[in-house]
């Protein structure tokens, strides 16, 4: 199969992480965190997912490069590579 799953999956978790991190930053100190016992769950977990997602994305890209025998063309940021 030519589509390495880690690429779309990494991208999705990066985006989710990004959304949570940004939202967590904006809502710092808000009352919504009374539920999670004062922990800014959005910010903390957003960062975790951001790291996880981007690592997976990069691993997938590296794996895909290995698979593609021809030297891959440069890909714009944020675009899913789908092989040939």
């Amino acid at each position, binding site marked *: *199969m*030519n*589509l390495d*799953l880690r690429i*779309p*999956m990494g*991208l*999705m*978790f990066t*985006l*989710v992480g990004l*959304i*949570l991190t940004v*939202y*967590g930053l904006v*809502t710092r100190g*808000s009352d*919504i*965190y009374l*539920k*999670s*016992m004062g*922990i800014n*769950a*959005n910010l*903390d*977990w*957003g960062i975790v*997912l951001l790291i*996880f997602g981007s690592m997976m994305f990069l691993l997938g890209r590296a794996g895909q490069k290995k698979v593609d025998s021809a030297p891959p063309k440069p890909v714009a940021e944020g675009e*899913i590579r*789908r092989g040939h």
Partner: protein
Amino acid sequence: MTHTNLTFVDWLIMLLYFVFVLGIGFALKRYMKTSKDFFQAGRALPAWICGLAFISANLGAQEVIGMGASGAKYGIATSHFYWIGAIPAMIFVGIFMMPFYYGSKARSVPEFLRLRFDEKTRALNACSFAVMTVFSSGISMYAMARLIQTLHVFDYLFISAGLPLGYIFHFSILLSAIIVLGYIFLGGLTSAIYNEVLQFFLIIAGFLPLVLIGLKNVGGWSGLKAHMPNPAYLHSWQGMTHANTNPLGVEVFGLAMGLGFVLSFGYWCTDFLVIQTAMATDTQENARRVPLIAAIPKMFFPFLVILPGLLAIGAVTPHNTTTVHTDASGAIVRETTVVSEVEAKGQGLVPAKTDPISGKIVLDASGKPLLDYDLAIPSMLLHYFPTGILGLGLTALLASFMSGMAGNVTAFNTVWTYDLYQSYIKKGASDKHYLAMGRWATVGGILLSMATAYAATGFNNIMDTLQLVFSFVNAPLFATFLLGMFWKRATGNGAFIGLISGTLAAVVHHGLTLPIEAHTGMHGGWIAVVHHYPSDMAQNFWTAIWAFSTNFVVTIVVSLFGTPKPESELVGLVHSLTPKPELGHLPWWRRPETLAVVLLVMVVTLNVIFR
């Protein structure tokens, strides 16, 4: 149920998931050129992907909601469904059975039965399996729609759009149907497997923070211990010697034989729903590794899906509170938080059960409110997660329902197309025709699931319903495979008559026995009550034991009277006539057997820790 405050962030995360799921389907569409690509993922996927899909395929409604519910109801003893009821069977299928499934070139489990036995055994298995997948997928769909309704996920959207709230159930059914249909129609089994892996990570991403916050709330493990309804909740083996002294109501023999052997081997070793993911890998070695790789996360899943149930029951039951504080102008302000009756009458965060028609709280015989255990995990999500991460938690939950459906639908379209359509309706058509048939079977499977979803009512615990169906259909099945793969004398007639007798034995046993405190009917005893079991679960396990034993004995007896297939036709299908898998090129630590031993040691250790 708590008032759900979802905001745009939550819906954004949900939407993102839907976009990616369908996007993966579209991206895969171009690779679906032959029926092999569509039904078998081209037999080209890496082992780790199939391994994670192997457990995710089973991680539908049954797992996430059911295991959390059982965790709240029975405690850590629920982990038997993993440590006894899954790991040994997963190791067995990887080490001993996968060489026959993968090596025989069968494209499905029923097709293996045709190669090993005969046409009628295959037809029987294919038909019962097709019905079961549709049923399971429909239950997932129903459970998901009901949950969306209970949690008021789309209420705000519906109110803003001026639509009646009564449509939410139908909308949810339709939404899940369209999404699952969309990605399977486009990308076939590859799409289903990819989305199962996606869901695997989503469940971890959504539930791990829940467990961490929940644990912090009760004061860590020691705090959890102090808050349990009784101390046995945190022990999996305490009181197992007798059915009356443990929460499951099962004694150790019934547990080990019924769950640990018959039901679990019947499911993990023969159910095409999970086997199809292993058969999608590129080599036989990898196919053998798939269940073993899957066993590693499977072993630790109790901490992700059972623990939230325990944390829910151990939390403080919400009650009306009044806080008094002085505001900026110096005035004294009283703020009263009113909780609903269902919450206040519940235990911990598990709400009381309400009658879906009257909306009143359901009481047991002694006048105490019954608890709605299936809401343990959803209540936890709503209670601890602020908007934002709540969207992630709910997405994880929705994803698990959809991937459970997807696995069933791909298993259904394969069995329908290869084992029923190609074998009995239209033989010898072009590959293109079968590929198109597979796509249309997907549509048919989804429509039938929708019909099932509307018909699904009855038991109050989803898992009990599924266990009941599995025990009728799957429990006798394992005896057929066991004898088929390890006894060359077993014949087609033996297998066929054995299977029917086994299923009949299950039905009769169910009709003759009843769990105590249950009414005759769906719970059993509809022929006559000759025996009472201490619990539903004990009855299910023993139904399975009877079904298996009957099939085992009948298959042997009938086979002994018939002539077996010539040995030349059984090469690659029976253990004694198949050359051992060639592993000489692998160093010892990379062989599947080594991994199997490591897994066994790990699972024993876990049992010792939580004994």
